């Protein structure tokens, strides 16, 4: 480990994983934590509970398609949904910078309330801290939530050769929108963040009785991070058809301009599913009934060999590894 925290430690790629493994897993080690799922599954009397947390520090706080308030609710509810859990109770911790406009705070809180309704979830406890001006960039929100597990055995370690990989929609929208809004970048698109609550889609899958193997929202680190985590935790390889991954033209445009790859860019509504082959087509069909998922696609399958790797098959029959992201997005000139 390097001696001090780098932005890359928060980027969802190799350095994030190292920090978690070398520091947090070492000191906080316990069976539940080491599952390293989107949400912890708690063995409580009376049924399993899922429990998760996320901190939200996104800048800018308002972006096409959402704001940090909406994100703080749907991001955390989604981590429950990804463990097959119905979001029920949420806590909200606000860290506010002295001088933060109350009108903006109110707008963000309203946005949170709206998103809670989409999840059937309630904020039942909270905390507010104010730090001196200059000690935060406006506001940070940390939400935690508890949900009741309705699909009991989802696990990133359960993938087996032959399982299919499904993505719920186009990748990279959120990351593209946020990067384009970065100060000084001067990039305009008509894109909106894919920021959305996923429990309704998961509920649809449950109601249609489709058994799932694993689910994960492709947030920081993008599609690539999810696929690599699954490959590693299940000790398999994943083979992905590059041209099956839905990507919007504007996302491709930014990638071409700045040298990024769509599968490294963050999403806030697009998620990845692993499913037995025989249920894959039906899963896609069910997903496509949901607006945000009408581009849902089978993008690949689980394979043996090359343990822990993700293999990309191009349209012209070449194969290569999908590379891991590298933490901080830096535009390239070469």
């Amino acid at each position, binding site marked *: 480990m390097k001696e*001090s925290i*780098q932005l890359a430690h928060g980027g969802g790629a190799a350095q994030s994983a190292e920090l978690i493994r070398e520091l947090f897993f070492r000191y906080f080690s316990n069976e539940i934590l080491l599952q390293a799922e989107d949400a912890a599954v708690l063995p409580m009397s009376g049924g399993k509970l899922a429990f998760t947390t996320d901190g939200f520090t996104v800048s800018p706080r308002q972006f096409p398609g959402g704001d940090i308030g909406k994100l703080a609710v749907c991001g955390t509810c989604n981590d429950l949904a990804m463990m097959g859990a119905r979001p029920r109770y949420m806590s909200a911790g606000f860290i506010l910078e002295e001088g933060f406009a109350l009108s903006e705070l109110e707008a963000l809180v309203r946005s949170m309330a709206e998103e809670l309704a989409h999840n059937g979830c309630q904020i039942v406890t909270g905390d507010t801290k104010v730090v001196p001006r200059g000690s935060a960039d406006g506001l940070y929100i940390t939400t935690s939530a508890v949900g009741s597990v309705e699909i009991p055995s989802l696990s990133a370690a359960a993938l087996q050769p032959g399982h299919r990989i499904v993505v719920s929609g186009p990748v990279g929208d959120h990351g593209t929108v946020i990067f384009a809004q970065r100060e000084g970048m001067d990039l305009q698109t008509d894109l909106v963040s894919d920021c959305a609550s996923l429990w309704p889609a998961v509920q649809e899958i449950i109601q249609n009785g489709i058994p799932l193997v694993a689910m994960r929202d492709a947030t920081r680190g993008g599609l690539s991070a999810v696929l690599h985590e699954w490959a590693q935790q299940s000790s398999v390889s994943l083979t992905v058809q590059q041209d099956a991954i839905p990507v919007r033209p504007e996302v491709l445009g930014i990638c071409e301009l700045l040298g990024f790859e769509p599968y490294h860019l963050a999403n806030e509504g697009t998620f990845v599913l692993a499913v037995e082959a025989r249920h894959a087509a039906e899963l896609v069909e069910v997903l496509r009934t949901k607006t945000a998922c009408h581009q849902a696609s089978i993008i690949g399958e689980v394979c043996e060999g090359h343990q822990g790797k993700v293999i990309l098959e191009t349209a012209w029959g070449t194969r*290569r590894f999908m590379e891991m992201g590298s933490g901080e997005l830096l535009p390239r000139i070469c």
Partner: protein
Amino acid sequence: MKNTLELTAALRHPQAIQAMASAIGTAATMLETPLHIMEICGGHTHSIMKYGIDTLMPENIRFVHGPGCPVCVLPKVRVDHAICMATQPDTILVCLGDMMRVPGSGGQSLQHVRADGADVRFVYSPLDVLPIAAENPGKTVVFFAIGFETTTPTTASLLHTVQANNLSNIVFHINHVMVPPAVTALLQSGSSSVNAFIVPGHVSAISGWKPYEKLAEEHQVPFVVSGFEPVDILAAVRTIVTQSLEKKPAAHNDYRRVVSYEGNSRARELVDLYFEPRSTFPWRGLGDIPASALQLRERFRHLDAEILFQSVLPENSSDDHRNCLCGAILRGVALPGQCQLFGRQCTPSNPQGSCMVSSEGACAAYYKYRGEAL
């Protein structure tokens, strides 16, 4: 061609690529000696690895990944300069994104010194330096300029604005390098196995493809200008195979929609106004190459960070790992996998030599896209 999207899609057409590749494969059976084609440009390396073009080639056609990535070839001491300037008081170091991750002698990159409090910013365009300087009148803004012929004019354009408007708080650390001297050095080194070149497409948009006529004639090898789409690269390979079969090596332009014989004269004039060749410049992995880099002309020394920061800039850097094979890789006589450090002591997050430094470097590209095994 209604829009850029259509053009790009057409140039990535799977059937076209497979058709081309199979045509190349058929023709290659007639080659007398194997082709070691150096794509000079890191952009081509990137395309080749990303689209797996190398895996479509027959046994006797191999790509040799050249020195055409500006951060890979940048000597470590210049990275140390950037870090040193970034940590001076009241100084803002601005660079293009590629520079941020490159480690200097101490293993620290600009990302690290930024984390430790230095004011380092990356920009998409050299022009983005202007608002930074305007918002920080009390600070010196150093633009750390890297790049080949394509990028040099953009630095020159920024210099032009700084001069025209008498801006007093922008200075320049110039690390611009040139393709032809590096190619000449490679060919003259004797030990190289390279017997054909794919010429950088966007460098040629500025320089034109004229400079490669002389090189082709002198060294009797094909120099084919190529675009960056898969079909472009395959077309260039096809031209090289044809030239080789016909034994008529020559400079040839397969990127006519972008590159002309004369190139962009306006850009070259602006470069010439502000820059002059250095007598020599050290290339990481290749060593000293005469007249291969630029510096600010004498009359702009008041803008030259190398002079202004002279008293603090380090003169020497640590050496690359002694087992590093970069030199051999760049001459086409070794592949990354043959280096004993590859993937072990040497990885993209802890590079030991120039080829691992940026994703355009040969070792980094193999590591990311091929692992040790695929």
